[in-house]
């Protein structure tokens, strides 16, 4: 029995099988009826990526004027907006334009007060039941970490916002549902939120649908990963340091072992 024959006979087919299986893994996430996501260019991609503050600020405007009518963002404080380049005065002014519940007045009646930088983002509905009631039974998910909670992350959200159209001929839509190419099952309760020209950008950028979708996705990515800029910078430094450390440790190892063989 020549053992060498066993290698090709057993091991290779086994590895080919694994290869095939592992290649098939990413396909799991995609439902058959949704097209594959197109990878967009994001400023926060890659090892050196950081948030494009101008895009994130425009995205904040889209969130504030469109999405926040239905979606909460409970983990965020107004002070967190410093992370996309707003200064203290801008944050104060942004918050002050929003009314939040204040302390009861002398007669015990609820009051309202302008929000402070230390306040959480205001939620559109007092509770999930109210949110469902206003949205035909569907709950608009909280957007604090939504970008991390979907396979495909920013590419998915971008695709979803651009994915509305009339349903293909013959498709039966359920009551109150909207056709979206990228939503699993293709029927989503959220009516198309962006059409283009939904906001007038303060920085004068033309607000096409693609532009708005791109900007609000950048803002959602920031909301979900406020530490990203710092994390990437730390990573670059840590990797350089550890590569250096590995190098000198290995050199030392060679030196210590030089007398062994």
């Amino acid at each position: 029995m020549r053992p060498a024959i066993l290698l090709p006979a057993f091991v290779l087919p086994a590895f080919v099988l694994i290869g095939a299986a592992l290649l098939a893994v990413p396909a799991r996430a995609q439902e058959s009826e949704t097209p594959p996501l197109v990878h967009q260019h994001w400023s926060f991609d890659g090892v050196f990526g950081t948030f494009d503050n101008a895009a994130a600020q425009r995205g904040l405007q889209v969130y504030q004027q469109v999405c926040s009518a239905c979606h909460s963002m409970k983990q965020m404080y107004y002070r967190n907006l410093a992370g996309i380049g707003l200064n203290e005065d801008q944050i104060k002014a942004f918050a002050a334009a929003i009314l939040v519940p204040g302390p009861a007045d002398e007669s015990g009646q609820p009051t309202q007060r302008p929000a402070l930088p230390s306040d959480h983002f205001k939620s559109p509905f007092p509770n999930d039941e109210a949110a469902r009631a206003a949205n035909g039974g569907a709950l608009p998910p909280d957007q604090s970490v939504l970008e991390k909670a979907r396979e495909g992350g920013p590419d998915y959200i971008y695709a979803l916002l651009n994915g509305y159209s009339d349903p293909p001929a013959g498709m039966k839509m359920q009551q109150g549902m909207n056709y979206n190419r990228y939503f699993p099952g293709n029927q989503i309760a959220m009516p198309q939120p962006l059409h283009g020209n939904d906001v007038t950008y303060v920085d004068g950028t033309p607000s096409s649908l693609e532009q708005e979708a791109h900007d609000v996705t950048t803002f959602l990515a920031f909301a979900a990963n406020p530490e990203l800029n710092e994390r990437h910078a730390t990573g670059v430094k840590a990797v350089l340091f550890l590569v250096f450390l590995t190098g000198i440790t290995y050199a030392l190892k060679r030196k210590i072992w030089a007398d062994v063989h």
Partner: protein
Amino acid sequence: MAGLHKSDFANPVINWIDTRLPIFTMMQKEYGTFPTPKNFNYFWNFGALAVVALMVMIVTGIFLAMNYTPNVTMAFDSVERIMRDVNYGWLIRYVHMNGASMFFIVVYIHIFRGLYYGSYKTPRELLWMIGVVLLLLMMATAFMGYVLPWGQMSYWGATVITNLFSAIPVVGPGIVTWLWGGFSVDNPTLNRFFSLHYLLPFVIVGVLFLHVAALHITGSNNPLGIDVKSPQDTLPFHPYYTIKDSVGVCVFLLVWAVLVCFVPNYLGHVDNYTPANPMATPADVVPEWYFLPFYAILRSVPNKLGGVSMMFGSILVMFVLPWFDTSPVRSCRFRPIYRQLMWVLVADALLLGAVGAHPPQGIWVVIGRVCTAYYFLHFLVILPFLGKLERPLPLPESISRPVIAGGGGGLPGGAPAKPMEKP
């Protein structure tokens, strides 16, 4: 036995302590001059790496626990608060989260090393069995830790896995209620899981101590799998292996840092960023990657009790492994057939992992069953019979022989000497 220790340390303070409590002498003996086979390859790094991983997990875990709230209404938000408002909270949490994966990668390679070089064989059976206990404790710890952030996968993973116990006849459902502390996974479950998740790592430290104690009785195995014959075969642990382990630690930390800083959620599941919701089952409940092969075995058996037994059995066979392997030769380097079957086993385990990641439909069911059967076939049938049938290659006389003669680390794994001729 009572009496002061005669210490050799020159430093008066160390000498004073060492005379009364000879821990310095012990450290010197076990980690300084400890005679260690001179022919280790880098596979022998992984035990030390596992210890590093455990230490980092304990330190980051303690800091997480300072800010974490084990309550179903607050757990998810408290983890997010750690990520956003605690100083370096994102770092601590991502190090801990990816640390579980790093720990398992390292331990799985460590186990592979033991299998390939026959480190489980006499006289190291007990050392090996203690290792299997460590694996079980790690699994329990990681499972309960994953429940703590109270996302969708936390909740549904906990529900699916605890429900497995209901397969036990008669007492099963009672056990499940007892585990839950109620009639579903809920606040009492989260509370006890937090308590146990804090406790078990320290149990691991204790068992690890026994593991290392047993190792220092038998001494280490080595890539040739032959016994140390003379002092020529060994080197003092320090500085030779302290420095070699340090090289491994640097690379290990490098990989960990890349995961944490650039792709912290790559190994996780997106659904765990959706807060737990008992009313909405995720499309597909999948465990963390390190449990996938076992999950595949569980789902490959059509009968629930059978699946559960096979899943636990797949780890329990490791306990009896030393007695199922009949070959007198330890290292796969000298077992031409078994060496290849070892790689088939690796392929089998990886395939089981892929099966576990897919819904049990179509071809995956078939692959899952074949791989499950092969896994047990390997340990229960191939191992006992092959040991009797296989003709091992001639063993070198001693560790130092080939090292001195070849100058390059003994017989290379790929191209060993010709097999013995039939007598």
